[in-house]
C-alpha cells in the first residue's frame, strides 16, 4: 500500500516482483505449512523494505535531477538576482530536500525537490518576463537618446556654424 501510494514499484521492479511472489507463496502455504509460510512472509517483508529504499533512492535522484535542471534554467535567466525572493525560496526547498534524504525522510525529500523544481521554474519565468520588459525599456531609452543626440547635433551644427565662426 505504502509502495503503491508513492509509486515506487516501477523504480525497483525486480525486488518488488520477488517480494510479491514470496507474499503469494506465503498466502498459499498459510493453510498447509505455517512455518514455511512465515518464512516466506519474513522474506517478502524484507524485499518490500528493499523496494522502498531502492524506489525512493531512484525516484528522489530523478526528482533531484529535475530540480537541478530547473535551477540551471533559472540561473540562465539570472533569476538569483532578477527574482531574488523566489529563487531563494527554491534554494531553501532544495537544501531541505537534501537534509531530508540524508535523514531517510524520503517523502519529505521528494516533496522538497518537487517544490524546488517548481520554485526555480517560477523564478526563471518571472526573470524572463522582467528581462524582456527591461530590454523593451532599454531599447526605448536607446532610441530616445540616439534621437536626442542626433537632434542636439543638428541644432548644435546650426548654431555653431554661426557661433563657431564668431569665436
Amino acid at each position, binding site marked *: 500500500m505504502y509502495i503503491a501510494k508513492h509509486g515506487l514499484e516501477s523504480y525497483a521492479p525486480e525486488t518488488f516482483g520477488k517480494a510479491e511472489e514470496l507474499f503469494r507463496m506465503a498466502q498459499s502455504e498459510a493453510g498447509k505449512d505455517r512455518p514455511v509460510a512465515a518464512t516466506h512472509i519474513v522474506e517478502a517483508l524484507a524485499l518490500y523494505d528493499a523496494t522502498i529504499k531502492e524506489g525512493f533512492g531512484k525516484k528522489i535522484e530523478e526528482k533531484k535531477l529535475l530540480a537541478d535542471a530547473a535551477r540551471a534554467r533559472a540561473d540562465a*535567466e*539570472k*533569476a*538569483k*538576482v*532578477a527574482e531574488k525572493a523566489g529563487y531563494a525560496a527554491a534554494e531553501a526547498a532544495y537544501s531541505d530536500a537534501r537534509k531530508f534524504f540524508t535523514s531517510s525522510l524520503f517523502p519529505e525529500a521528494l516533496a522538497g525537490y518537487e517544490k524546488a523544481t517548481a520554485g526555480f521554474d517560477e523564478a526563471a519565468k518571472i*526573470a524572463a518576463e*522582467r*528581462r524582456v*520588459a*527591461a*530590454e523593451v*525599456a*532599454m531599447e*526605448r*531609452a*536607446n532610441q*530616445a*537618446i540616439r*534621437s*536626442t543626440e542626433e*537632434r*542636439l547635433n543638428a*541644432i*548644435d551644427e*546650426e*548654431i*555653431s*556654424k*554661426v*557661433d*563657431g*565662426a*564668431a*569665436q
Partner: protein
Amino acid sequence: MSCSERISKRSERINKPSVKIIGLALLLMLFASISVSAQNSLFDNPKYRRALDLQRMSKAAYDSGDYLVAGTYAQEAETLSLAAREEAETQLQKWIANSWKNRAANRIAFGEKVRAPERYPDIWPQAQEVYALAQSEYEALRFTQSTEASKKVIELLADIKAEPAPVAVVKQPEITPVEPTPEPKPEPEPVAEVLPPTPAPAPEQVILPAYYVVRLIESARDCFWRIAEYPFVYGDPLKWPILYQTNKDKIPQPDNPHLILPGMVMTIPPLEGEKREGTWKE
C-alpha cells in the same frame, strides 16, 4: 607673414625669457578659450548627461540580472533624454529669436543713423512699436512671437536707404580712413528661418578698405564672422568663408578658421566689383 611667424620673430628679436613666457601664456589662453568655446554646450545639458549615466547604469544592472532596476533606469533615461531635447529646441528658438532681434536692432540703429524718423515718419513709429513687442516677447520667453515681431521690423524698414554722405578712404599707410556709412547688407539668415533677401545697393561713391588689421577687442573678439559683418567689409557675416579662403595662408592654423590673431593684416577681396583701397583704421 603669419601671426605665429610674427610672434616668433618678435620673440627672437627681444630674446627675453619673460616675454616668451608671457607670449606663450597668451597663446595658451587663446587656445584654451577656443577649445572651451568649441565644446558643445548642448551636450553639457545636465539632463542629457544624466540620461547617459542612467543608460550606462541600466546596462550594468541588466548585465547583472537586475532587470527591474535596469528597466527603471532606462525609463528615467528616456524621460530625461526627451526633456534635454525639448530644452535644446527652446535654446534654438531663443537663439533664432535673439538673432532676429539683433538684426532688427541693427536695422533700427541704421535707421536712426540715416535720420529715418524724419525721412520715414509713416513707418518709423510702427517699427519702433513692433521692435518693443519683439523685445517684450523675448523677455517673456515667447521666442517664436519675438522672432515674428523682429521679422516684421525688418520688413517695415526694408526700404530705408542711406543718405548720400561723403566717405573718406585712407590709402595705406599715410591716410587716416573714416568709416563709411553704407547701408548694411541683409543680416545673416538664422538657421531654419527664411527671409527674402533685401539687397541694398552700395553707394557708388564709397571706396571701401582693401585691408583690415585684426584688433583685440575684449567684448567682441574679431573673427572671420565678425569681420565679414563689419559694414565696411561685407556687412554680411555669412560671407566669412570668402575672407577665410583668401587669408587662410596667413593664419596660424590654415585649417582652423577659428584662430586668428590680433595684428594680422587681412585682405578683403571685392565681391561685386566694388572699389577697395587702403587699410581700414578706427
